[in-house]
């Protein structure tokens, strides 16, 4: 079978990523170690990926390529936009810092390879292709976490992330192989045939291992323990990027596997998702309550948000299924802007909670942005997090299952539980007296630009919601 020109067009975002990846690395090898040039190339590259995915989306480009193993649809392109957009802000945040380490091209190459893996991942329709793309996204992320040689925590966080990550990968792979063995093919359409009717024990074990592997990667409790250490050790830009882009892609591909590969086993996996969602929400919020380090606080908060997203997965049944897919799409976009912003503020202020005391006096712009991100993470109405939670709750209410009602109740309870630590940050910034530890402005114009832009998008997310929901309604899945 010849590869047509159409297939190249379908792969356009990935080809652009690959091109810029090689370019950035080669500039580092042969050119001068000019940070402005490499960072500019990487930022332009992520914008080009964003543009090509947006172009394909606007042109209504859809199709299935490479023997059905690679799909381009609205759903995949939507997540490519999220990945490329967050990569742009991560590159902005990484430019100055990676320049100071002297290894800017290598670091930016790692970011672009995570982008390549994530953009491939959301289009994959073949279980082994999914595994390959997933590893392409995670292996560079281990190196990103361990990249900061000036802090001992970085290598330690990298090692913990790596060990749990490779164990999770082999568990996931075992699940994939068992499902392949049961269904005789790794393609999701043929997996769906094997997962219709009653499940054999081997298929059940395969499904359990697959979901456990993904729970590790998504940092869902009880598989979340690597998250705080990895995010505390990682360079800020890496923590910000890894908590958003690959995670969005993992959620997308899990949704694709479950909906395309095993729709008839939905009663089984929605029950598992409901259990995971409840445990993850409570663990994330309860552990976040006692953190004094802002990185760890945000790490546990990202665990809690994984729980809210899994609640949408639990609602993928009955009348709420189509709406639950929308909820996942809206929530990932909302989560991406607010979480990226909150992490990037650490770059400007510091990771100790004390350095935020009285920030409104010394640094009003950054303090206001941080307050916006914190309020958005709680889910205060006009901000982005509110729409994510609203969609999840509406999907849960429409599902008509008692278990999902319990999950929705847990979402509401956890929103209240999360108020003390998010609003504690706002309170410290507004009411405490500035101390000597209060963060001073550290220059870094690019990071400042990224934080302000993200704060504006978080605030005005409500204006995006109508185009977003029409986009998600036409997303292809369901």
């Amino acid at each position, binding site marked *: 079978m010849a590869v047509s020109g159409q297939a190249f067009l379908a792969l356009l975002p990935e080809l652009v990523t690959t091109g810029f990846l090689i370019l950035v690395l080669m500039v580092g090898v042969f050119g001068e170690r000019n940070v402005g040039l490499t960072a500019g190339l990487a930022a332009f590259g992520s914008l080009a990926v964003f543009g090509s995915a947006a172009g394909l989306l606007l042109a209504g480009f859809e199709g299935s390529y490479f023997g059905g193993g690679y799909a381009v649809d609205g759903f995949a392109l939507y997540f490519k936009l999220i990945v490329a957009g967050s990569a742009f802000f991560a590159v902005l945040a990484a430019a100055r810092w990676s320049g100071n380490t002297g290894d800017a091209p290598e670091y930016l190459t790692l970011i672009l390879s995570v982008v390549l893996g994530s953009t491939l991942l959301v289009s994959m329709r073949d279980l*082994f292709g999914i*595994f*390959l793309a997933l*590893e392409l996204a995670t*292996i560079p992320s*281990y*190196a990103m976490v*361990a990249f900061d*040689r000036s802090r*001992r*925590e970085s*290598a*330690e*966080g*990298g*090692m*913990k992330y*790596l*060990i749990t990550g*490779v*164990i999770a*990968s*082999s*568990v996931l*792979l*075992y699940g994939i*192989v*068992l499902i*392949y*063995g049961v269904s*005789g*093919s*790794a393609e999701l359409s043929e997996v769906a045939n094997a997962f219709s009717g009653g499940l054999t024990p081997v298929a059940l074990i395969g499904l359990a291992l697959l979901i456990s592997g993904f729970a590790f990667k998504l940092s869902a409790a009880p598989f979340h323990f690597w998250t*705080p*250490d990895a995010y*505390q*050790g990682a360079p800020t830009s890496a923590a910000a990027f890894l908590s958003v882009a690959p995670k969005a892609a993992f959620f997308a591909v899990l949704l694709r596997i479950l909906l395309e590969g095993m729709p008839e086993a939905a009663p089984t996996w929605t029950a598992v998702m409901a259990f995971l969602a409840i445990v993850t929400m409570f663990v994330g919020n309860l*552990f976040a309550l*006692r*953190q004094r*380090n802002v990185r*760890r606080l945000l790490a546990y908060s990202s665990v809690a948000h994984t729980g809210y997203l899994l609640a949408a997965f639990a609602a993928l049944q009955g009348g709420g299924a189509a709406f639950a897919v929308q909820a996942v799409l809206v929530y990932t976009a909302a989560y991406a802007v607010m979480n990226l912003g909150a992490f990037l503020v650490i770059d400007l202020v510091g990771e100790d909670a004390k350095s935020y005391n009285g920030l409104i006096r010394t640094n009003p712009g950054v303090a206001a942005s941080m307050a916006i991100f914190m309020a958005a993470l709680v889910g205060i109405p006009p901000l982005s997090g509110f729409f994510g939670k609203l969609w999840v709750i509406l999907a849960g209410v429409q599902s008509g299952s008692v278990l999902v009602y319990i999950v929705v109740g847990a979402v509401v309870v956890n929103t209240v539980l999360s108020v003390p630590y998010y609003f504690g940050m706002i309170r410290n910034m507004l009411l405490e007296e500035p101390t000597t530890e209060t963060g001073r402005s550290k220059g870094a114009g690019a990071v400042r630009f990224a934080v302000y832009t993200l704060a504006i998008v978080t605030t005005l997310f409500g204006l995006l919601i109508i185009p977003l929901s029409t986009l998600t309604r036409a997303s292809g899945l369901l």
Partner: protein
Amino acid sequence: MPQIPPQARAFLDALVAAPPLEWYLVVGALLFAIGAWGALVRRNAVVIFMCVELMINGVNLTLVAFADHLPNAGGLGVSYAVLVIAIAAAEIAVGLAIVLAVFRSRRTVNVDEVTSMRG
């Protein structure tokens, strides 16, 4: 030519015949379980990597056995196995680099001694 007793012939035939699929799966599951056990109880990061390799090889054995027994899988399953081997090598390459970085700053690679972050 001496007469071979039928019991002995049956035994020899069973030895020569290809074992059924289940045997491969059991060996693969055992390898995976031994690797997982080792990865959980051992403290040295390098030994943990060796255990993870054992897990991946157990999975790979399962994969190749399935690929050989499935009617319409063709050569695809075996080519997947080659890709899995390549991925395992990439994981370990990054892993050893990170372990080396940890060793440089702390002079130990025991995972229970590398604990500066808590909570």
